[in-house]
């Protein structure tokens, strides 16, 4: 469908159907359609379909919004849940204090009785992901010749390929506003299936974003530091993410927020030009 026809391409015909063809192209397209009545008929049919679909959607306009979709109702529901969560957290603190157990130790409970099945599983997943992410960071971020499997020049292919292997549409965050350029990415094996690593570079400093699908709850950012590598871990829906670099916590936090915001669906990704005179 996208094959060029003379100097007219399918995208321009699409734009014509949507009434978005640049004015300077109108004459060429008109000439093309005058010479190809079957193409004109095809586009007219597209236009009729577009119009009919709009009419069908317009039938829903003015329909009242159900109460459960009112912002006030959704907010009230969230407050209620937070209240119960706070209550549960407070109760947990009391129990821990009463038992003389240091909560932090729960992190390293391996063979002992887990605090609760689900929580223990989440903690184990988190440990597994952060350990794998750290290992992958240490191995590949120092690689000189082959730091990535597919380079940033083929970004579209990279995204498509890794999305397919991970079974989930991936988004490669744009970190140019923080001075980091995408180098590319690679596919990695893990005990819970394929994982992806994206690598970025700012001068000599390399940053990796590791992600994979796993049994994770939604968790807030958690920072850890090992062998001079700082890492933020968080999870969102069915994915665990780990962002690692040899940089200070404050800087990494800003980067983690930038990544998080783009992954969680802030469509408006800033793509500012790199700052002038910045060596990279």
């Amino acid at each position, binding site marked *: 469908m996208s094959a060029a026809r003379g100097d007219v391409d399918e*995208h321009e015909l699409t734009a014509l159907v*949507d009434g978005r063809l640049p004015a300077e192209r109108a004459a060429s397209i008109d000439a093309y359609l005058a010479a190809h009545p079957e193409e004109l008929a095809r586009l007219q049919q597209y236009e009729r379909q577009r119009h009919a*679909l709009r009419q069908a959607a317009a039938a*829903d306009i003015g*329909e009242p919004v159900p109460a459960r979709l009112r912002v006030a109702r959704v907010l009230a529901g969230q407050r209620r849940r937070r209240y119960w969560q706070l209550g549960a957290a407070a109760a947990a603190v009391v129990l821990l204090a009463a038992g003389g157990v240091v909560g932090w130790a729960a992190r390293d409970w391996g063979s002992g009785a887990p605090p609760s099945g689900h929580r223990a599983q989440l903690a184990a997943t988190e440990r597994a992901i952060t350990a794998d992410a750290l290992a992958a960071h240490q191995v590949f971020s120092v690689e000189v010749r082959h730091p990535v499997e597919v380079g940033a020049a083929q970004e579209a292919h990279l995204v498509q390929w890794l999305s397919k292997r991970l079974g989930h549409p991936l988004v490669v965050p744009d970190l140019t506003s923080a001075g980091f350029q995408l180098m590319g990415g690679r596919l990695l094996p893990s005990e819970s299936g394929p994982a992806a690593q994206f690598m970025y570079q700012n001068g000599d400093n390399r940053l990796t974003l590791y992600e994979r699908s796993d049994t994770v709850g939604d968790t807030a950012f958690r920072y850890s530091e090992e062998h001079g590598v700082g890492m933020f871990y968080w999870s969102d829906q069915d994915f665990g993410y780990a962002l690692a670099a040899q940089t200070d916590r404050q800087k990494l936090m800003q980067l983690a927020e930038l990544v998080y915001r783009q992954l*969680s669906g802030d469509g*408006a990704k800033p793509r500012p030009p790199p700052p002038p005179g910045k060596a990279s």
Partner: protein
Amino acid sequence: MAIEAASIEAHIPGLRRFARALARGDRDRADDLVQDSLERALSRWHLRRAEGDLRGWLYTILYNRFLSEQHRQKRRGVHDTLTEAIESELPQIKGGQDEALEHRDLLRAFAALPEEQRAVLHLVGIEDLSYEAAARVLGVPIGTVMSRLSRGRERLRQFMNADLDAGDGAPRRGK
């Protein structure tokens, strides 16, 4: 950043339309999706860029929620049956019979399109998002938006024409 209820609510009818297009007209499922997206948007309000495009942000969240729901369902082996979902939602026939039937067929054909084509036909063709804005919502390059548009439109056209020709195993018009 304080939550501006009114500015969000202005987009709820649009979110419901988009959700219906994704959920193939299943209104309950669509409203569940909208509710889920609103919860997510409100709990992440502080992450929104103040100068960003609110509608695009909300649509992006909804689309991502839809995809992850699809993904979960596929993993669980749930397949929604197309006919069940949309047949009950098709408009009642009134006025000229032929025209009404054609209208029903078009909606049925639209519901049968792959979700990425439905999403782009809806955002561009019905909600009038720019190609750039639709690309941001769907997280794909503009070229992909354009290709999905032309493929989706062509598929609708083929469906409708096959319907007219009948025979040769083409989709049949249900009465």
